[in-house]
């Protein structure tokens, strides 16, 4: 395959891990890999190059504008200018979806979404996506000509350096967006967070409805902190308003693959498990012997979270 573009995003001043994952996969599939950035390219060129991007097409500062319409229009202009890639890979992220959605309408092309595996079969790209809570895998490919658009779930591929030299920075001008570009970010708020990010942490401790009440979630945070990990949640307690959506693990939340995942008071619905069953080791604490989570746990503890977790915290604190 000729050329794949990767929509690269920034997180905490660095290239987001999902973007590095996509670059690694793109290198396996294409002769030429290039990055597209809604923002400044200079600061990212070294890292993108080290992960295999030959060029970074950068729009420059979006001045508070949202990535969706700006980056999609800029990509279309580049394609019209003769620079069409065979495929564009996006992460299933806040901005990735926006850009892919806008682009799909502009190109009149579908997007293959929720992709967890990408391979080349008879010269065309095939994306695989889990359905029915991850119990069945469906593979899809485009049957038309044109640019293939893929939205890939984070943690599907491992990031890997290629040792490449810094990417060449090329300007990707944003055409006039008209009304579509009218939304402006006027302020940014960072929620206080300590410790590693949920989808990058080596240890994830998650709580579910079995905690009984919102206040008990602090126990999950304490345990996560003691293990140098991040705190996650089932959708049940996100929907109940106990914790923000950013904590949600599962089909409609984050996919995590830590070394250790500790599920506390979580039943193990398929939609939850699809987000964490790739973890290396799973520990589950649930008072119901029949809880489905025990079906995938390396260590299952039939017990009360209100007894087991505080003791665990105490014992870890005692070790200092």
């Amino acid at each position, binding site marked *: 395959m000729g050329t794949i573009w990767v929509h690269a995003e920034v997180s905490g001043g660095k290239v987001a891990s999902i973007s590095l994952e996509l670059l690694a996969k793109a290198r396996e599939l294409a002769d030429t890999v290039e990055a597209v950035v809604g923002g400044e390219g200079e600061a990212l060129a070294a890292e993108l190059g080290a992960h295999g991007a030959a060029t970074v097409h950068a729009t420059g500062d979006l001045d508070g504008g949202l990535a969706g319409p700006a980056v999609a229009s800029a990509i279309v202009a580049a394609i019209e200018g003769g620079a069409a890639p065979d495929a564009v890979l996006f992460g299933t992220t806040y901005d990735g979806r926006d850009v892919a959605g806008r682009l799909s309408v502009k190109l009149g092309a579908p997007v293959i979404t929720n992709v967890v595996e990408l391979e080349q079969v008879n010269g065309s790209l095939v994306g695989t996506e889990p359905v029915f809570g991850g119990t069945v895998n469906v593979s899809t490919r485009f049957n038309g000509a044109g640019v293939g658009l893929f939205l890939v779930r984070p943690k599907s591929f491992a990031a890997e350096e290629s040792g490449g030299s810094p990417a060449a920075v090329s300007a990707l001008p944003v055409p006039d967006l008209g009304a579509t570009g009218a939304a402006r970010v006027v302020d940014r708020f960072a929620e206080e967070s300590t410790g590693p990010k949920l989808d990058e942490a080596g240890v994830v401790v998650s709580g579910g409805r079995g905690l009984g009440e919102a206040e008990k979630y602090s126990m999950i945070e304490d345990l996560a902190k003691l293990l140098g990990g991040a705190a996650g949640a089932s959708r049940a307690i996100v929907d109940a308003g106990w914790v923000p959506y950013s904590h949600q693990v599962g089909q409609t939340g984050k996919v995590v693959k830590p070394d250790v995942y500790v599920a506390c008071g979580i039943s193990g619905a398929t939609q939850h498990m699809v987000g964490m069953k790739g973890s290396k080791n799973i520990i589950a604490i649930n008072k119901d012997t029949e809880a489905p989570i025990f079906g*995938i746990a390396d260590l*299952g503890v*039939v017990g009360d979270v209100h007894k087991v977790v505080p003791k665990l915290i105490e014992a870890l604190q005692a070790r200092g």
Partner: protein
Amino acid sequence: MDIVVCVKQIPDPADPGELDPATNTLKRDMKLIMDESDSYGVEMALQLRDAAGDGEVTLVSMAPHEEVNGLRSALAMGADKAILVSDEALAGTDALGTARVLAAAIGRAQADLILAATESSDGYTGTVPEQVAELLGLPSVTFAKEIQADSGEVLVKRQTEAGYDEVRCPLPAVVSVTAGVVEPRYPSFKGIMAAKSKPMDQVGIGDLGISADQVGWAGGGQEITDVSPAPEREAGEIITDEGDAHERIIALLEELRIV
């Protein structure tokens, strides 16, 4: 303020469907319900309409078999009327085709603001709202957790990886809302009775100026090459807590060199 809310009607997730082995698509012959994800958009629309003191909430849905069950639930919550697009030609329509249909249907209503959920519970492509915005030539804000409307614009708190962004956006605009951000009201008995007589505009794709080759299987532009069961993960050891389970957990964490 006139608000359109996209409401997807889906099979009950508690009773998941199965793939039709002949066509590799979801079998959908059971009664459909309102996707819970859309109940948040409906609630938000009702609150915004009531705060503005004027205007109407119009529901828009594309569904097979002239299904109105989910729309009636949202009308019972307090929405004013609904537009339903149902057409045999729509079977197998993908996200882009769905967005084309919804955008055309929205064109039949008055809309200062168009709300949708960030993703549906059964399809979860999460692209439809942004595609609708692009088709209508409108700005959009996805992943809203709070919306304030005043004089021709909205101020939206948009979820981000780090926290949230405050985004100002002139109307008309499309905004997608995440689950759990408001408490959807339960329909009252009066609401349920009133829903039965609220206006329901039922249209086919011809009424929207859409031809059959733009939707359905033909319009999709993609094909399924394989369907296979996902690999299973084996269960390990299960112990019952006798007051010392934490020690076993710590022993495992030590073995894994986490502590």
